[in-house]
C-alpha cells in the first residue's frame, strides 16, 4: 500500500515538473522581439488570410520581430483587458468595438497615435474616425464597419404584388399590409423587428432630425424628449405595430432574426448585411437586400454604423512597432481585401456600391461620452421602447424619463 502511494506521488511530481518546465520555456519566449495583437474571433473565422498577409508585410520590414495574434471573444475581452491594465502582460495592439472606445480613451488606456502615419487617413469614414478621437488626439485607427440593411424574400414580395421596392416608410407600411394579406400564418412578420431593438428605433429618431444626447458647454443634455425625437419615436411605434409580430419586449437578438426567417415566418428583416449568410438553404436563392427607406422620399433611413477600431494600449512596451503593424493591417490593399469580404472599408475613397455601403451613406452614432457604455448596459433605451410599445407610458412620458436618465448617467464624474 505504502509503495503504491509513493509511486502515485512520484507520478504527480513528474507531471508537475513537466508542467513547470513547459511553463518557464514558454514565458521566456514571449519576452523579447515579438508583439502581441488582440483581434476578435471574427477575423479568425472570416479573413485569416488578410491577417496573415499583414503579418508577412510587417515581418518583411522587421525581420527580428514575430507577431503573436491572440483571438478574443466579444463577451469578455474587456474584462481581460482590464486585468492586463492592472497587472501587465497585455497586448501591443487591441481591437475595440467603436462604442467601447470612449470609456477607455477617457481613462487614459491608450497611447496617442500620429494620424498621418496611416493609409487614407484623410478620408476615413467620419462615423468611425470620430470614435477614435478624444481631446483632439487620435487613439484609434478605424478598422472596418458594417451598416444595417433590409434582407427580404423576393418571392414573397412578388407574390404579394409588390412591384417596386418601398421608397418611403409609409410605402413600406402599405407593402407590409399586402404581405400580411397573402401570408396568414401565425407569427408571420412582414418586417421582423424586435420591439426593443434600439438600433432600428433610434434610426427613426435620427431620420426625423432628433438625437439621443448632445454636449453643451461640457455638460450632456438629453435630446429624446425634443419634438423631433418624439416624432421619430412615434413614427417608430406606428411602423412596428403595423409591420412586426415579434414580441414588443424582445430586443431582436434572441431568437436570431435569420432563424425566424429560415423558418419561413419573415417577409423582411432589418439587420447587418451578413444576415444573408444564414437564411437557410430553402430561401437563399430568393433572398435579396435593399436600403431601408426613410420617411422622406429619396433619403435612406440612417443606419447604425457599427465597427471596430485598433488601438495601442498605454501599457505596451512596443508602441512604435504596434503602430507599424496597424498601418500594415489597415493599408489600402488590406482594406480592399476586407471590402471584398463584404465589410465596409475604413475610408470613403474605398467605398463601393453594395447595399451595405449605400446604407452607410446616411448613418448615426451613439454619443461619444465616457459613460455611454453605462447607458447601454443599463438598458435605458430598451426599457423606454418597451414602455412605449406596451402602452405602459405615452411616448412623451417614456422619452422624458429616458432622456433625464441618460443625461444623469452621462454627466457622472
Amino acid at each position, binding site marked *: *500500500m*505504502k509503495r503504491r502511494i509513493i509511486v*502515485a*506521488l512520484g*507520478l*504527480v511530481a513528474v*507531471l*508537475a515538473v513537466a*508542467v*513547470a518546465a*513547459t*511553463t*518557464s520555456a*514558454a*514565458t521566456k519566449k*514571449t519576452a523579447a522581439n515579438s508583439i*502581441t495583437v488582440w483581434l*476578435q*474571433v*471574427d477575423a*479568425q*473565422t*472570416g479573413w485569416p488570410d488578410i491577417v496573415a498577409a499583414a503579418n508577412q508585410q510587417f515581418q518583411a520590414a522587421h525581420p527580428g520581430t514575430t507577431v*503573436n495574434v*491572440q*483571438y*478574443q*471573444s*466579444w*463577451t*469578455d475581452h474587456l*474584462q*481581460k483587458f*482590464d*486585468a*492586463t491594465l*492592472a*497587472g*501587465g*502582460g497585455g497586448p501591443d495592439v487591441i481591437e475595440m468595438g467603436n462604442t467601447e472606445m470612449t470609456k477607455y480613451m477617457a481613462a487614459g488606456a491608450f497611447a496617442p497615435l500620429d494620424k498621418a502615419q496611416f493609409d487614407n487617413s484623410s478620408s476615413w469614414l467620419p462615423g468611425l474616425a470620430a470614435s477614435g478621437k478624444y481631446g483632439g488626439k487620435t487613439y484609434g485607427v478605424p478598422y472596418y464597419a458594417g451598416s444595417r440593411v433590409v434582407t427580404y424574400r423576393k418571392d414573397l414580395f412578388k407574390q404579394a404584388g409588390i412591384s417596386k421596392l418601398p421608397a418611403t416608410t409609409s410605402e413600406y407600411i402599405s407593402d407590409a399590409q399586402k404581405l400580411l394579406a397573402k401570408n396568414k400564418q401565425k407569427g408571420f412578420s412582414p418586417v421582423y423587428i424586435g420591439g426593443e431593438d434600439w438600433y432600428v428605433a433610434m434610426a427613426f429618431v435620427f431620420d426625423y432630425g432628433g438625437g439621443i444626447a448632445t454636449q453643451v458647454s461640457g455638460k450632456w443634455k438629453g435630446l429624446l424628449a425634443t419634438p423631433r425625437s418624439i416624432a421619430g419615436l412615434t413614427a417608430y411605434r406606428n411602423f412596428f405595430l403595423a409591420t412586426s409580430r415579434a414580441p414588443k419586449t424582445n430586443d431582436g437578438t434572441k431568437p*436570431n432574426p*435569420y*432563424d425566424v426567417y*429560415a*423558418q419561413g415566418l419573415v417577409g423582411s428583416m432589418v439587420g447587418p448585411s*451578413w444576415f444573408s*449568410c*444564414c437564411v*437557410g*438553404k*430553402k430561401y437563399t436563392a430568393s433572398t435579396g437586400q435593399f436600403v431601408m427607406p426613410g420617411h422622406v422620399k429619396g433619403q435612406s433611413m440612417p443606419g447604425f454604423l457599427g465597427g471596430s477600431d485598433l488601438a495601442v494600449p498605454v501599457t505596451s512596451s512596443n508602441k512604435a512597432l504596434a503602430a507599424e503593424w496597424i498601418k500594415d493591417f489597415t493599408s489600402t490593399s488590406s482594406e480592399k481585401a476586407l471590402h471584398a469580404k463584404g465589410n465596409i472599408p475604413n475610408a470613403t475613397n474605398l467605398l463601393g456600391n453594395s447595399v451595405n455601403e449605400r446604407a452607410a451613406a446616411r448613418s448615426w452614432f451613439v454619443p461619444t461620452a465616457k459613460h455611454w457604455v453605462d447607458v447601454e448596459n443599463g438598458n435605458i433605451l430598451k426599457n423606454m421602447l418597451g414602455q412605449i410599445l406596451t402602452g405602459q407610458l405615452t411616448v412623451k412620458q417614456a422619452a422624458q424619463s429616458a432622456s433625464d436618465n441618460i443625461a444623469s448617467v452621462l454627466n457622472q464624474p
Partner: protein
Amino acid sequence: MNSSRRNRRRLRQAGWNAVGLAVFVVMVFPVFWMISTAFKSNEQIIALKPVWFPLHPTLQHFADAIHKPFFWRDVLNSLIVVSVTVAVSIVIAFMAAIALARYRFSLREVFVVLVIGIQMLPQAGLIIPLYVVLARYHQVNALSGLIITYMTFVLPFCVWTLRGFLLGIPKDLEEAALVDGSTRVGAFMKILLPLMGPGLVATSVFAFITTWNEYIFARVLLNDQAKQTVTVWLSYFLGTSRNTDWGALMAASTLTAIPVVLFFIAVQRRIAFGLTAGAVRG
C-alpha cells in the same frame, strides 16, 4: 410463503426501477437534446415543430467542431490541468481532513473558518487581483498558474467533504487496529482508506468536473490559444459578433463531456465496492 415474499420483493424492485427510469428520463432530457441536436441538420435545429430523433443524422457538425483551431491541443491542456489539480488536491486535502477529523489542536477552529471562508468569496471580485498576483510571478499564460488557482478553489471543498466522510467512520475501528498492534499510519491505511473509498471517489469526481468545466479564470489567465483549456475553446463558438454555429457548438459540447463521463465510469466501481465492503464488515 417464501416464493410470495420473493415475488413481493421483485415487484417492489420493479417499482423502484420504474421510478428510477422516470427520473433518469427527466434529468437526462436536456443532455439528450444536446446530443441529438449535434446530429441534426441546420433546418431541423431551428424547425418550429421539435425533431426528436433526427432520421438522417449528419456528422458534419462534429467535423466542423474538431477542425476548429486548437481543439486537440486544448483538450490535452485540459487533461493536464485537471489531472494534476485533482491528484494533488485530493492528497493534501485528505491529509488536512484527517487533521481536522481526528486530531485536536489549538488552531483547528481557525483553520476550519479559513476553509469555509474561502468558499464564501465571490469569485468575480477576485479576478483582477488574482491576475495581478500571478502576473508578478510569471504565472499568467501558464498552465501552472491555472493549476494553482484551481487548487485554491477546490481544496476547501475537498477538505470539508472528506472531513465529513471521515467523521462518519467510527474511531473505534482504528482503535481496535491499534490495540492489535498496528502503527498509526498502518491503521489509517488498513482501516480508513478502504472505507473512505466512496468518499474519495465522490470528492475527486467533484474536483474533476469543477476544474474541467471552469471557465472564467481559464479565460482571463490564458491568452495563447495553444495554452487554453477546452472550455475556453468552446466559448469561441459564442463569442463572435456574427452567427453562431449551434450544431457545431452542440457537437463540441458533446465531445468535451466525454472525458468526464469516462472518468466517472472508471471510478464508479469504487462506490459499489464501498457498499459491499460495508456488508462484509458486519
